[in-house]
């Protein structure tokens, strides 16, 4: 009886071994994390022992464990590499100062590169943001409805009720016009500084042509807003 069990177990083991051999040959080599094809050196993370920012100073580095470090670099290679240092930030500040001096009214310039706002100016900005986003959302909502309209069927005529006041609409157009102008200025500045890649030059040409047309339309229609 005992002998039989031994033989049976032995046979089962041998079969399992055989199956195991056939299944694993030529199949995946299991690894916790597939290595990325990145061969680039992790410049910023060479000897990376912790995040550079000062918040959570007690947070232990997960990289104390070599596997964890390998996993992180495999999963998030660019995010880890893109941690910026002070020298980079100073260069960016210098760019902003230069850009803001050339285009002081550009809407993309952050407050820190402008004269400090008074309380009233800050309140006006909040109010403008409310007004612009309200009208903008209204138009996105309405155009979304029109986009799903039946093919071949004409859209309804403009409703008698405008849905927005003329002041709101004027402020909306003002912001839109400033924004498109600012966008064009940004691209032109980047071009002057040779900051666009060659493939982006063609895209920039097409975009600027389209934005100029959009700007023309906005300027034209904004003049038709009644003074009521």
């Amino acid at each position, binding site marked *: 009886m005992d002998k039989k069990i031994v033989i049976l177990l032995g046979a089962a083991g041998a079969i399992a071994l055989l199956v195991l051999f056939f299944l694993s040959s030529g199949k995946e080599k299991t690894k916790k994390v597939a290595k990325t094809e990145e061969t680039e050196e992790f410049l910023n993370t060479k000897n990376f022992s912790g995040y550079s920012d000062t918040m959570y100073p007690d947070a232990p580095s997960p990289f104390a464990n070599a596997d964890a470090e390998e996993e992180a670099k495999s999963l998030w290679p660019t995010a880890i590499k893109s941690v910026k240092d002070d020298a980079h930030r100073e260069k960016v500040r210098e760019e902003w100062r230069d850009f803001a001096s050339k285009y002081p009214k550009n809407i993309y310039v952050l407050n820190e590169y402008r004269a400090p706002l008074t309380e009233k100016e800050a309140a006006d900005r909040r109010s403008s943001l409310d007004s612009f986003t309200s009208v*903008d959302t209204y138009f996105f909502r309405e155009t979304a409805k029109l986009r799903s309209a039946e093919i071949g069927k004409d859209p309804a005529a403009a409703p008698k009720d405008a849905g927005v006041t003329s002041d709101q609409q004027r402020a909306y157009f003002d912001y839109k016009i400033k924004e498109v102008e600012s966008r064009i200025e940004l691209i032109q500045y980047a071009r002057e500084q040779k900051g666009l890649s060659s493939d982006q030059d063609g895209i920039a040409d097409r975009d600027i042509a389209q934005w100029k047309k959009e700007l023309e339309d906005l300027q034209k229609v904004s003049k038709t807003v009644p003074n009521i």
Partner: protein
Amino acid sequence: MIILEIVRNKKIENLKKGNVLKMFKIFLTLFALFVSSISAQTKAELFARPGVIGDSLSQGFFGVNVEKKSQEWAYPVIVSKQAGSSVSYNILKGPYLNFEDVLKGDCGPICMASSLIGGNASTVQLPTHAGITGADYSNVLKTSGKCEDITATKQVRQWYWATWYWYTFRWVTAPDCQSPDKFHQYGLRDSGTQMEVMEKVKPTFLFGSVGANHVLCTALATSTSCLDEPRFKRDIREVMRRMSAIGSIKGGILFTVPNVTAIAYLESYTDPQGRANYSGLKAFYRSTVSNPDEVLDKTEIQTITTFLTMLNNEIKAQAAAMGFALTDAKVMFDDIKENGRPVRSSDGYSPGNARANWPLLNQPGIFGLDGVHPNMYGHAVMSNELIKAINVKYNTNIPQVSEYSAWYNDSLNRNPVDLKKFLTNTILGQVISWLIGIFA
């Protein structure tokens, strides 16, 4: 003598028993190896060629941009890597801008300009990951990298010789190909629609969730007018029918859509004058409400909840019909909203539970600065929930990602930006305009 004989027999018996035990242990070990090998085999077969259809979540949209960094941390890329496989995709460098980098002073006007017009950092012949920002199941079927709607047609004149002396025309139906948005242009290029890409890729495993934008529009537009149940049902069913017809898919995963009225983009608002239709949920950046359209009131929230239940039931039914794994992301998100998500290192350190918000001072969070999309840490959380569901469904052993490591290496969590301190910056109106334009 007899006693000696008995002792000898006992020893032999014990020896035999010992052998049996040993053999049994060997058998158990072999059996365990056998089972894990089958599991590895299943994983290898499943993930031989993963394919992805999807939206901003799968493409790695991150307030308000798609770029290499954020594409790498998107859930299909992470889950595939953890499964020992990979997906290929066109790498974008915009459009729009990484608002975190701008506000932190990491991206100046030149970087901003480059990101604003966007383009491809690198491309592949045929992506296996075709998820595109702003897409829903209708876009999966209709929007390619070249045409907003490949089924759209128009009437054009076709000139021909009617007789040897008479040149005339007849009206014929021709494709009406309007340029799609830049996310589709750069993400799909000339590969076709997301559906057509999958039909060419013939994936073995499908990341098939594209449901969120059928309902997210309500939160961003604070309106229920974009809800369209027949279109959603028709198109998800058609997508799954065509996926089944491919014949190569051995498994996949779908997830339900979280409660979009609970995202960080929206916050409670009570009208000072007590008007019901002026109270409810407003966009976080709005300081006042001057119009009922600027809030989701109680009735609208109920309409969205009902729609969401219908949508998630359909997703669950499709997952079951396709034999796919299912992650109930709605339940997961509700739990994070209620209890937070513990962030803890292997040696017990915790910065606190992550909240369903963008990170704030000493408070980890799962969202990016738009209050709609997850940050790098949030994607790791999402990936782990997907991995758990895949492991249960297919008996695989895909390892989870270290959420602590994701938090530790997430720049927004480690160095938070409180967006509410930037509301007087003139750039913000346009950032919100892009966001609403993509998702509303």
